[in-house]
């Protein structure tokens, strides 16, 4: 190895603590990206795999546009010349006491094995010698089910065993391989029909078609026929907004990571200035210095990257679960497979670490090779020019800010443009940090003097004088804190909006049935109607269908009951909006309106059981149940159009001043219990919705934590560098009679000062970020309005975090002060 290179590399073990901090900085940045990206990818891949597995060899599927289809169509399907094979499916959900929600497929094993041969490879749990009896039992025992291998392992089933579920106890007879990440349960189609009270009904038929146009010409009317490709697209389209947000979070992690590495590289450059000067005076070429430094950066990048890859892998264990839960509670059952360790993760980590090091190191590197050896040797650092430099950087920042603003005001632009704008804003804010720091300096000085007296004053000066070192660390920390405030305020506002919305729609005293699992028999609805004194009995049906080839939801409601008891949040108008609904019209959610550009008074066309039906849009209401769009109509209209009488849920409204209110509630509860139907109060339902909401944002919250950890290492690294680099200065302090405690205090004040400045800046940047997330990103990606509600909490939480993190970052440097300061002399090394 060249001695030039060696002279740089020797710094790594020599300043081990600093090197470790730098390494951890790189590692955390890389870990955040690797963890987030890998988890998101695995979850989405599991999702794709689950869809693919469920599809099997089917080329198409046929179903009613809304609700289940009649099984008597199967005979005609079996004789249709275009149908090579078919398999009827009941596709429902169920929750297990031990394993949460699973998908339950009701299939005919004889027909289905052509489409999904994997499922047929059952391993029996019963006595193998008596396998025939097992099979006969499966086909004749109404409670018999198969679980996939993983689910079986998870619950720990080894022999035939009864399983408690939301649909009563089921008997596990065997298990089958399921390469997808979706927990799956199989039941005979006939038994599934009984379990879900679907007499004569199935959910869909999966098909292998040989002649698509011919088939479409015979079956299009009243049916929804989708090719497998269309089906996959519909499903992945559902996840689009979610996927986008995961990508944005990964990018944010990368952004903070690169920032930190830039920070690290910048420190390295500063500490190598003098050596570079000596080397130049000895006749070393710029290229040689460049290579030596590059090598050092790459070593940091590779080792940090490899470590980051590993930490990222560990992170996936947490994040994959979080993402899976979010997808499951919002869209589709999924239990993503854990990320499998492979050497590629290490490679990706190294690649990321190195590229980020290069990206972050490129400006410092240019600075290093352009170094003026005369200045470097004379010991004059670039600090004198730092204020001018800060102004230059700020000008670029302003330029980027203008571009970002322009991006926001581009009419009708895509959410990606919105994200670009947000990133632009964040970048410009970080570039402006230096100048703002200079402007804030007198104020900072006052605070630090107040807190720390003379050492505080010196610390304030140090922060300003070493802007080159402190500025980047402050910017990185500021970005993390802004993210924390911005995301926190956005989530908080969203939560407030959700609570407001729930109060507009979920006003019932009791809710019977759970939307996903338990359908309510229609005769129970009739039974309830016989109870006297109930103010309103509200039959609710929510179902997914397609509109313009994308997934939307349709809700069937009783307009008269809702008119009386609900307080919908309308974009325009009030309760009179129910009139058109009663007359066969529809109302649409804000997300539907924005997504498809439909306004009040427009007409939308939905595919009904007898072909297309036109509906007039009577009004638009606020809704957060689905970003895909919701069309609401009266139950009578719904049944007329779709012929589906299914009920997902019944809401019970009792007048406030009713004398027998509690008695009535008890009566309804009793009757629901007799039928084994779950009953929730309005408050409990609201609580459940909030829980789903909180689960959904668990990933976002975890990213906030990661960003702050990354920035923590940034601050710690900056403080340590400041201490190490200024040993000559410390010699002078010592000569002047500064005590060790005072210098320690100074270091603490430096850390605190950086934290305070970062926080002050982040209050502004974070608030703007929150507003951007709410007004630009949410509207563009979810098509709904969140009402910004200012709250103190995110600021307080972030402020405390900032102070604690900056104090925490100072702990090690302070320890170093106590250890080395008493020995520091005024002399050269």
């Amino acid at each position, binding site marked *: 190895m060249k*001695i030039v290179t*060696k002279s740089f590399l020797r710094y790594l073990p020599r300043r081990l603590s600093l090197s470790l901090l730098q390494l951890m900085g790189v590692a955390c940045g890389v870990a955040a990206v690797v963890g987030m990206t890998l988890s998101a990818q695995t979850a989405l891949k599991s999702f794709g795999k689950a869809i693919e597995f469920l599809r099997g060899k089917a080329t198409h599927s046929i179903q009613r546009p809304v609700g289940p289809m009649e099984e008597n169509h199967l005979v005609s399907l079996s004789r249709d010349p275009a149908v090579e094979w078919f398999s009827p499916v009941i596709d429902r959900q169920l929750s297990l006491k031990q394993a949460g929600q699973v998908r339950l497929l009701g299939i005919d094993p004889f027909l289905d094995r052509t489409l999904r041969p994997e499922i047929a490879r059952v391993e029996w749990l019963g006595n193998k010698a008596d396998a025939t009896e097992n099979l006969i039992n499966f086909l004749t025992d109404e409670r018999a089910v198969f679980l996939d291998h993983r689910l079986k392992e998870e619950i720990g089933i080894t022999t035939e065993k009864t399983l408690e579920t939301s649909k009563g106890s089921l008997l596990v007879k065997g298990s089958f391989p399921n390469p997808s990440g979706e927990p799956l349960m199989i039941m005979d189609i006939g038994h599934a029909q009984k379990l879900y009270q679907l007499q004569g009904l199935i959910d869909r038929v999966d098909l292998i078609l040989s002649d698509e146009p011919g088939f479409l010409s015979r079956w299009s009317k009243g049916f929804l026929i989708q090719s497998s490709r269309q089906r996959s697209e519909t499903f992945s389209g559902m996840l689009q907004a979610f996927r986008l947000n995961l990508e944005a979070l990964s990018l944010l992690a990368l952004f903070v990571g690169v920032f930190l590495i830039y920070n690290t590289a910048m420190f390295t450059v500063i500490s190598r200035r003098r050596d570079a000067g000596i080397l130049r*005076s000895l006749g*070393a*070429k710029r290229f040689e210095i460049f290579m030596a430094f590059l090598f050092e950066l790459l070593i940091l990048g590779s080792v940090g990257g490899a470590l980051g890859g590993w930490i990222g892998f560990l992170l996936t264990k947490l994040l994959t679960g979080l993402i899976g839960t979010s997808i499951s509670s919002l869209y589709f059952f999924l239990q993503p497979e854990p990320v499998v360790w492979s050497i590629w993760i290490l490679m990706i980590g190294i690649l990321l670490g190195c590229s980020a090091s290069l990206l972050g190191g490129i400006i410092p590197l240019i600075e290093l090779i352009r170094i003026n*050896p*005369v200045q470097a040797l004379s010991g004059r650092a670039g600090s004198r020019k730092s204020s001018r430099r800060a102004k230059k950087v700020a000008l670029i920042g302003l330029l980027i800010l203008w571009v970002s603003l322009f991006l926001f005001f581009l009419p009708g632009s895509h959410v990606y443009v919105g994200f670009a704008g947000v990133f632009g804003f964040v970048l410009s804010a970080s570039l402006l940090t230096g100048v703002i720091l200079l402007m804030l300096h007198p104020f900072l000085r006052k605070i630090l003097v107040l807190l720390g007296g003379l050492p505080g004053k010196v610390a304030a000066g140090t922060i300003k004088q070493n802007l080159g070192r402190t500025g980047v660390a402050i910017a990185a920390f500021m970005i993390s804190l802004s993210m924390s405030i911005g995301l926190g305020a956005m989530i908080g506002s969203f939560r407030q909006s959700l609570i407001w919305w729930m109060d507009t729609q979920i006003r019932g005293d009791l809710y019977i049935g759970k939307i996903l699992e338990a359908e309510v028999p229609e005769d129970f609805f009739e039974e309830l109607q016989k109870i006297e004194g109930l103010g309103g009995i509200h039959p609710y049906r929510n179902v997914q269908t397609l509109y313009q080839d994308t997934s939307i939801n349709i809700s069937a409601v009783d307009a008269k009951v809702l008119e009386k008891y609900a307080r919908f949040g309308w974009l325009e108008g009030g309760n009179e909006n129910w009139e058109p609904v009663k007359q066969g019209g529809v109302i649409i959610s804000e997300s539907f309106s924005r997504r498809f550009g439909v306004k009040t008074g427009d007409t939308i066309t939905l595919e009904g059981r007898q072909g297309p039906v036109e509906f007039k849009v009577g009004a638009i209401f606020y809704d957060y149940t689905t970003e895909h769009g919701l069309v609401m109509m009266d139950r009578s209209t719904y049944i007329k159009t779709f012929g589906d009488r299914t009920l997902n849920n019944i809401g019970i409204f009792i007048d406030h001043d009713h004398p027998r209110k509690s008695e009535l509630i008890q009566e309804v509860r009793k009757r629901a219990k007799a039928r084994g139907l779950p009953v929730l109060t309005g408050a409990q339902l609201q609580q459940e919705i909030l829980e789903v909401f909180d689960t959904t944002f668990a990933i976002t919250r975890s990213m906030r934590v990661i960003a702050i950890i990354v920035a923590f290492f940034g601050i710690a690294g900056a403080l340590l560098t400041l201490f190490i680099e200024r040993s000559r200065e410390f010699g002078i302090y010592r000569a002047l009679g500064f005590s060790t405690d005072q210098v320690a205090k100074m270091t603490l004040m430096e850390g605190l000062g950086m934290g305070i400045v970062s926080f002050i800046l982040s209050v502004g940047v974070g608030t703007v970020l929150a507003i951007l997330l709410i007004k630009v990103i949410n509207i563009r990606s979810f098509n709904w309005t969140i009402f910004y509600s200012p709250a103190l909490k995110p600021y307080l939480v972030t402020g405390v975090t900032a102070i604690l993190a900056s104090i925490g970052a100072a702990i090690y440097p302070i320890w170093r002060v106590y250890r080395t300061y008493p020995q520091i002399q005024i002399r050269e090394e």
Partner: protein
Amino acid sequence: MVIIRIIDLWKNYGEDGSGAPALCGTNLDIHKGEIIALFGKSGSGKSTLFNLIAGLDRPTKGRIEVEGRDLEDLGEKGRTLLRRTKLGFIFQFFNLLPTLTAFENVFLSLELADRSKPELALKALRDVGLEGKEQRFPNELSGGEQQRVAIARAIVKNPSIILADEPTGNLDTSTGNQILDLLTRSCRESGTTLMMATHSPLTCHYATRILRMVDGVITEETSCEEISH
């Protein structure tokens, strides 16, 4: 033989070169084998002159010829090559690379000059009296020892000129004398031109030629006595 020729050399600092001049039209011819002591107070322009001769800095006006070639014409590459092969530098603050051992600091010089022979570096260290301390790091050496390493680093590549900027400025008198003795002896033996910038009269007795610099202007002196006042 004139090894360095300086013609009407001006150097102004500051962004646009409008600041107070550090050098004001200096003219100087230096011959091969001369040992020059350049006296002057701090800030008189000594270091500036050295940096210009070494090609580390560029003059505002005027020209420097080293072995008959204009530094400006050499270009950045040529100047770097010049520093590698023809020029040795010794600093007041030694400027050893803190992460390299004494041996490595010297060997670095050879490596840059493309003559990577370890025995040359070992010999140079022996010549400056540091036998047995080759593997020490600068912070494990005394000031005098560090400067010996710096001298070894300069002489090892057998340069035509050694520029020594306050070589004893950071050393006590006896150590300073030892260093000056070593430096001048080495230069005389190899016929290397030595140019020392200094403000210590000590240096005077080792020089064959004495120059004084005041406010960027060089004048010739005849004896050491004049320096003293």
